[in-house]
């Protein structure tokens, strides 16, 4: 359909003019609509994602991530028959991490707890961001691997800053940039999201890549299945008493 392509190009040429009229609220509203709508996202009470994580050197692990409102997350990481558990019950983080030499439940290190709190938010930081105490500002519009993207500066309630890139056409979240303290150095990390597919009327990224900006190594996560509203007992997120 060549005429459609030309029509698409003509519409694309209008984008800069339209862009100037975009506000943060409009962009976020379009983003939520693109994902399936705020109503459908709000209807998600719990989630279970099963994925394969692949690091350099052909190292692989099976990862099961369970999230439940409010702010609960549990991640099981299995490599070579060994399973570790990393969880946050809304108040405290704990882990059983044979990979770190720990077989009994222990409090989670602070950086990992911060991650648990951040990723335990089912809808993500843009859903009801004002009510959550985050701040969102429009930081510009940039080209990301040849595609235009809105750049949003998200200051989380705890003060951490994330730059979220939303594809200018689809309004889907395609990248997050964050600066993290690694061994005393500030490192710019980036996480990309792609291969969006629908489950229960909501789009979820099935391909996630995590890395350091400017470096070639990537941790790749391929999500095989997404279950919406599975029954997840609260006890799964609470730190077990291993002394019993």
């Amino acid at each position, binding site marked *: 359909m060549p005429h459609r392509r030309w029509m698409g190009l003509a519409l694309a040429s209008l984008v800069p003019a339209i862009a100037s009229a975009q506000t943060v609220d409009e962009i976020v509203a379009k983003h939520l609509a693109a994902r399936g709508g705020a109503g459908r996202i709000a209807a998600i009470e719990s989630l279970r994602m099963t994925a394969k994580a692949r690091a350099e050197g052909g190292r692989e*692990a099976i990862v099961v991530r369970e999230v439940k409102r409010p702010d609960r997350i549990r991640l099981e990481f299995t490599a070579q028959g060994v*399973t570790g558990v990393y969880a946050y019950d809304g108040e405290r983080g704990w882990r*059983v991490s*044979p990979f770190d030499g*720990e077989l009994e439940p222990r409090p989670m290190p602070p950086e990992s707890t911060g991650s648990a709190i951040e990723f335990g938010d089912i809808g993500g930081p843009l859903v009801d961001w004002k009510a959550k105490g985050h701040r969102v500002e429009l930081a510009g519009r940039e080209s990301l691997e040849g595609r235009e993207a809105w750049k949003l500066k998200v200051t989380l309630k705890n003060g951490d800053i994330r730059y979220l890139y939303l594809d200018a056409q689809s309004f889907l979240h395609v990248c997050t940039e964050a600066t993290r303290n690694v061994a005393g150095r500030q490192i710019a990390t980036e996480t990309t999201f792609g291969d969006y597919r629908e489950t229960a009327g909501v789009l979820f990224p099935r391909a*996630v890549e*995590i890395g350091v900006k*400017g*470096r070639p190594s990537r941790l790749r996560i391929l999500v095989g299945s997404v279950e919406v509203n599975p029954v997840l007992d609260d006890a799964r997120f609470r730190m*077990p008493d291993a002394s019993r």
Partner: protein
Amino acid sequence: MQRSVLFVLAVFSCAAASADEVYLKGGGRVSGRVVQRTATSVEIDVGAGTIAVPAKQVERIVEGRCSLDVYNDRAGALEPKDREGWAALGRWASDQGLSTQSREAYHRVLAIDPADAEANQALGNVQVNGQWMTEEAGNRARGYVQFEGQWMTPAEQQAIQSERAAADSDRARAEAEARARQAEARAEEAEARAKEAEEAQQAPEGIPLWWGWGPGPVLWPTPPRPPVPPRPPHPPRASP
């Protein structure tokens, strides 16, 4: 850092006693073959080595065939030249989280066809100018350098080294000042070294999940790690 698990590199053994799922009290799990069981510990062969779990941490053991047994049965039935069979076994082992066995199967595929795309990708190899090579060789071919286990541009390596040189200079100045307060400085230095050593030991290898997806292990599991030797006690702190 206390390490209650003993990871011991071991020769892959088929003379196992049984195949079990060992459930830990805290919710973790170890799947493999129990090769030794005493009153105080359970030793499990997970296919890439053995793990010794203190018996008090074990909630229950469910006996049965583990994925490792299935892998060995399937591998034993395959002809060396069966490319499809080895590739299918590599995929299956990967789906079971048996990284070591998956790599073993894919290496068999490469022995049959060194240019096999699926096996090369599964082994983490990369294609540069039409040639498959290891990720390490690929990174070098693309101009990256390896510095302290991380691949980066030469410019970034230079920047890190410059930062450190400046930090060393600052440290030297601080040490000169500290010499005036010799006794305290000695204690501080010893403490700082111990902390550095501990931090180096805890530094993440590779890219942790918590950077972008959720909480996870600090250390990406590489081949089983030997236990960390106990740190020598700190020298007594001098009184001010």
